[in-house]
């Protein structure tokens, strides 16, 4: 087998792993968009916020320490304890649920029935607000997130591929874990949506508000639930991404990568978000590998957007999105 092909396989696998993370972020978008028609620009910041909160809680940081010290002239930094990863995640989930409730109660509830563009603007505001709150609560320095996930080279794959091709693939353990967790998350979400009362109600709300009300569904409750689930998905994405490249502001920018993913997969399709993420992940890595050297590299910055643009021209509803049919 030629070297080029062997390298391509490795690049493909790594692309798949990167794609999983795109899928996770895109999934958060789809959940909220389906249920409430809101394009949540803040999804990426929610991932950042969740990751920062998790680090802060685990390290026993005092929230709003900077603010407290500046106001009262104190010198508090830490509670002096550390919280184990499991408890930290549970507490962070709690914080994300409170956040979901707050977002709905103070912002979205008052905007029900407004134009999509207004809802979109509200989420942009929310994104900047959340970013500020996250900095204020936990400080703006780059943090490392370690919840004990396996990291580094997977030696089994390295050895097996070395025996097969005479060249060991470099696959990060973290990426494998991320893929498995993402797959479990998606299965759980699908089971939840298909088979539970709340899931059924969620699908109903996504389909028709008025009809949902008439069968006794509390829209407010469902919306808070959806934002909570999206918050949880953001937490998972934030943890994976944060463990990989540190918890820092750039984490919120992965939200922008989710946009082309959604254009490929369709804004209303959960399988679309998954497949779209994988295509973008694989596509940009392979493109960089094959075409990158010819055009001076750095194609990963724009490849996803150009691909999305092509999709917009030929299939605007995405791969799995609802068909756009205009009756005349």
């Amino acid at each position, binding site marked *: 087998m030629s070297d080029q092909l062997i390298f391509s396989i490795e690049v493909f696998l790594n692309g798949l792993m990167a794609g999983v993370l795109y899928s996770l972020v895109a999934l958060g978008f789809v959940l909220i968009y389906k249920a409430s028609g809101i394009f949540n620009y803040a999804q990426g910041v929610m991932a950042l916020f969740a990751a920062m909160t998790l680090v802060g809680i685990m390290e026993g940081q005092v929230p709003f320490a900077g603010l407290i010290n500046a106001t009262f002239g104190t010198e508090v930094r830490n509670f002096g304890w550390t919280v184990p990863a499991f408890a930290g995640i549970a507490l962070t989930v709690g914080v994300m649920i409170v956040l979901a409730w707050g977002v709905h109660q103070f912002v979205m509830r008052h905007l029900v029935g407004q134009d999509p563009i207004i809802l979109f603007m509200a989420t942009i505001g929310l994104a900047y607000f959340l970013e500020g709150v996250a900095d204020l609560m936990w400080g703006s320095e780059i943090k490392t997130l370690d919840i004990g996930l396996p990291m580094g080279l997977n030696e089994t794959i390295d050895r097996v591929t070395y025996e097969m091709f005479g060249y060991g693939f470099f696959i990060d353990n973290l990426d494998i874990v991320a893929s498995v967790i993402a797959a479990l998350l998606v299965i759980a979400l699908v089971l939840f949506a298909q088979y539970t009362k709340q899931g059924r109600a969620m699908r*109903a709300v996504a389909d028709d508000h008025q009809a949902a009300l008439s069968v006794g569904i509390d829209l407010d409750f469902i919306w808070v639930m959806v934002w909570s689930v999206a918050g949880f998905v953001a937490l998972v994405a934030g943890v994976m991404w944060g463990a990989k490249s540190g918890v820092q502001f750039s984490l919120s920018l992965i939200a922008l990568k989710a946009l082309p993913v959604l254009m490929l997969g369709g804004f209303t399709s959960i399988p679309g978000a998954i497949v779209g993420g994988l295509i973008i992940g694989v596509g940009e890595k392979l493109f960089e590998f094959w075409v990158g050297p010819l055009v001076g590299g750095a194609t990963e910055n724009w490849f996803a957007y150009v691909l999305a643009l092509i999709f917009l021209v030929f299939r605007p509803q995405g791969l799995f999105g609802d068909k756009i049919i205009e009756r005349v």
Partner: protein
Amino acid sequence: MLDASGDGYITEDGRKIGGVVMEMRNITLRFGGVVAIKNISFDIREGEIRAIIGPNGAGKSSMLNVISGFYVPQEGEVWFRGEKRPPMKPYEVARQGIARTFQNIALFEGMSVLDNVMTGRLTHMKTGLMAQAIWKGKAEEEETANREVVEKIIDFLEIQHIRKTPVSRLPYGLKKRVELARALAAEPKLLLLDEPMAGMNVEEKEDMSRFILDVNDEFGTTIALIEHDMGVVMDLSDRVVVMDYGKKIGDGTPDEVRNNQEVIDAYLGVAHD
């Protein structure tokens, strides 16, 4: 004959009608300066088919929306099953046992017929999220029980052949029937039908009339319906409220209403001299 003095009455075809289920007392509803409903009172009794009729714009749909909680009237009281109802959201009204259909059909277009009808059972599902997550025993039993009710209704309304069809693919008349099925699945204490025959051809209208009568007969469901087609209503209903320009201009059996001069004027127009 009407015997409003007692706890009910016997209809012309010999059905026994029970006590008052729902009572509207002096309802007034305004939108800004426009008065949609002016000081209207009437009641709905257990087991009866009660119609609200009137020309377009008379305020019939507004009245139905007041009953189902979509509108909150500025004045007046709503009494349901002997208790005064505080202002409620539509989903709370639904949970009290009032199901409805919509004039313009509000179905879950992306779901199958079966799933649509199943959503009608949501108010009857009690098992918590954790129990469902484990998905054993109670949750399973509940699901099975709900499915039985739903299948019975699907059979009853003769929509077995489209159980698995996505609603978006159905023709208008069938959609109306699916919506009725979903409302029935809630086993409502009061069923509200907003123009169940609007936009139908004669044959579909006859089918729908038959289903409404059968539902009332078979399940003993109390039904309040809105219609502007006088003919259909008169054959169907036990008692009729007639509205015009937001006011009640008649209330009684179809025969009484038909001979009411004000009603005749409203429908046929009256010469102003």
